[in-house]
């Protein structure tokens, strides 16, 4: 038996922590605060599997023959194309936009010609309108159409089309306008990258630490916070020291234990501030605002250079010939990236968009890279979770409850969900599940626990429950 499954011991068993004041700031120095134990309760230690790409410098992926740029690359209202077939587009030109508040415009990543407006499936399985662009043979990737000057920096962030680049793809400008009654005191940059295999955030922190810090300061200014903490898991020591070298005294770099899901928003706030996000409230209720480090770089680029978001760093790894980290134009087909790394090895079992804990299985490698695509992982066959056959019994070992960072009882929710007793799942607070997948990971009988909980959440929401 390996030791990786072993849930972390519960440090804070018992008392409610909702009202806990943030941790004493005097003990957080730039020299590095290390928590006495795991930064949060629950969680797992899957093999990090990052060695193949953690040392590989970010390179630029070539311009593909054709780009397919989806109009829905974010959570919220999809954009409508504002270009037509045959139009010429420049790199950075807006090609899709929508009025809705929770949205972000889409820009052309290249100079070229719009070939068609097509129906395209994204990794998540959704079908969305997409603009198909044939790039010019000669591309100047240093040039771009700058985003317009705006009254507020938040408007510039929106104009740049920035969304959460950690994977959730929530429009960044919305989070930068917190409710008036919830002032933000601490900006937390998420550099945990707790998902196995992925190294895109790691490499960006290592190669562009000054951009991360610049973005952190911009975010702090936008929300009027007085403290910035960059949280990085301690398996990225080089990134921590790179950030500390450029951080100055106003930006704290905090080393956090390597522990999945350390990068989940609520768990990160808990680790950094010792504050629990109350049920049904925004994270801002704790005075914290969390952004991914990649998002911070994009925000810095938008504010300092008026640069729209037209590309992102994607880790291509796993059972591939030459794993690496690539600056990839949005709309590049996944297959192009896989070709770029020399193709998949024979032992590859399944290609994942994102990390193996929360990413999506890639059904179609013609799907394009979008703003939320942090990686393409060709999982080796031996690593892929075995398919669940039939209804496996729960042996009540309690591993799922111990691993659950939300302190739920996944085994019980799973049993109720199997019976379609949605009231039961609600009583066991299925709606609080963050879908990190720890329960399914540890289950010794391979019950599809998080999958059952997702089904329960879907059923509860379709009958009107709110998260």
């Amino acid at each position, binding site marked *: 038996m390996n030791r990786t499954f072993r849930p972390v011991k519960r440090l804070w068993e018992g008392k409610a922590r909702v009202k806990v004041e943030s941790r004493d700031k005097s003990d957080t120095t730039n020299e590095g605060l290390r928590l006495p134990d795991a930064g949060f309760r629950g969680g797992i230690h899957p093999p990090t599997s990052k060695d193949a790409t953690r040392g590989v410098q970010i390179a630029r992926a070539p311009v593909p023959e054709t780009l397919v740029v989806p109009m829905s690359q974010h959570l919220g209202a999809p954009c409508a194309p504002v270009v037509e077939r045959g139009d010429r587009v420049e790199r950075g030109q807006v090609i899709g936009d929508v009025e809705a508040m929770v949205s972000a415009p889409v820009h052309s990543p290249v100079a070229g010609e719009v070939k068609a407006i097509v129906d395209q499936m994204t990794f998540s399985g959704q079908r969305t309108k997409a603009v198909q662009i044939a790039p010019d043979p000669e591309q100047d990737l240093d040039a771009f159409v700058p985003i317009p000057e705006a009254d507020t920096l938040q408007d510039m962030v929106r104009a740049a089309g920035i969304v959460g680049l950690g994977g959730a793809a929530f429009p960044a400008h919305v989070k930068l306008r917190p409710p008036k009654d919830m002032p933000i005191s601490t900006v937390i940059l998420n550099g945990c990258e707790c998902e*196995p295999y992925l190294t895109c955030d790691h490499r960006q922190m290592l190669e562009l630490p000054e951009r991360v810090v610049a973005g952190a300061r911009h975010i702090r200014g936008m929300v009027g916070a007085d403290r910035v903490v960059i949280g990085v898991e301690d398996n990225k020591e080089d990134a921590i020291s790179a950030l500390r070298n450029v951080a100055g005294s106003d930006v704290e770099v905090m080393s956090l234990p390597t522990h999945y899901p350390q990068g989940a928003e609520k768990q990160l706030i808990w680790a950094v501030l010792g504050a629990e996000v109350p049920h049904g409230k925004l994270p801002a209720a704790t005075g914290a605002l969390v952004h991914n480090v990649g998002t911070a770089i994009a925000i810095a680029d938008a504010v300092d250079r008026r640069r729209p978001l037209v590309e992102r760093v994607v880790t291509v790894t796993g059972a591939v010939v030459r794993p690496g980290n690539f600056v990839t134009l949005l709309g590049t087909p996944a297959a192009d990236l*896989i*070709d770029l790394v020399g193709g998949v090895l024979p032992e590859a079992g399944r290609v994942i968009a994102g990390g193996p804990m929360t990413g999506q299985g890639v059904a*179609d490698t013609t799907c394009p890279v979008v703003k939320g695509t942090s990686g393409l992982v060709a999982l080796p066959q031996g690593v892929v*979770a075995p398919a669940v056959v039939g209804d496996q019994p729960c042996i009540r070992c309690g591993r799922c409850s111990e691993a659950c960072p939300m302190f739920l009882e996944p085994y019980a929710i799973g049993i109720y969900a199997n019976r379609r007793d949605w009231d039961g799942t609600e009583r066991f607070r299925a709606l609080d599940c963050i879908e990190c997948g720890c329960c399914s990971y540890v289950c010794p009988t391979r019950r599809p626990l998080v999958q059952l909980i997702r089904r329960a959440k879907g059923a509860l929401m379709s009958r009107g429950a709110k998260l």
Partner: protein
Amino acid sequence: MTETVRALDRPALASSPHIAAKENVTHIMLWVVAALAPVTVWGIWNMGMVAVVLLATCIGSALATEAGWNLIARRPQTLWDGSALVTGLLLALSLPPRTPWWMAMIGAFVAIALAKMLFGGLGWNLFNPALVGRGIVVISWAGVLSEVKPFAGGWFSALDVPATAGYDAITGATRLALEAADRAAGGAYAYDLAAQYQPLLVRNLQGSLGEISAALLILGGAVLVVKGIIDWRIPVGYVGTVAVLSWAFGSDPIFHVLAGGVMLGAFFMATDYVTSPMSKNGRLVFACGCGLINVVGRFFGPLPEATTWAILFMNGLVPLIDRAFKPRTFGWEGRRG
């Protein structure tokens, strides 16, 4: 697009997480078997063929019952999860070595068929199957089993000893029974408890097969605790309660934790996942309850031993304990409704 990429162009409708811990239920069960291996081997070494026959009968009958039930009920075959193997092994270790083979067979059948499969199979049973099997055997044939015969030595010695062979010179009673008799007589026999530590720890032929060596049981249990397979709260809470209470009742706490089924029960029976509470605090309460009933049974009950009944009784309370120790959900003030 390369050929390799195209080969992967097939719907992969699997949802996250895409990876899983290596440990599965069979690994867990095999670790329990491994932890019981030293005491089992030591039992065979000392008791010879009689132990082999008991082990083979219990394990064979348990496996056959599970396989047969699945065949008749047309359920998927669950033999490979290893749980029937563990149940059969635990049943054998919990029975006196000279238990007639047909009794052991009935015990194994009851354990698997009535205590487990009838409830819905692994995970759904309320009571520990091995203990139900043992319980049925010992109450059905209490008279036969109370005449535990000692061993004259030799590999086949115990097999052919007639029940009336006249071993009266050597007492057949277990140490617990002797202690109880001494206690009832107000210490008239002057039974030296401290002198029993060493045989109880190392080589004890008076009692169940698994009671041969408390030291080897502790060793196996410690391996399971270190491996993270069982929660230390159950053995520690159980043994601790037995020690404290037997001391409080004026007896020797070390003797009482080493004698009888306490070690086997605390490390291997009460820790059964299915029939113990889910929460850590609940497990502690459960373990202390087992210890309490065990000691009360020993000191005030009609039988010298009460481990089986203590654990089975607390098994029945597990749903209530789970209700009493609901976890607090992250972000919520109180415990869930």
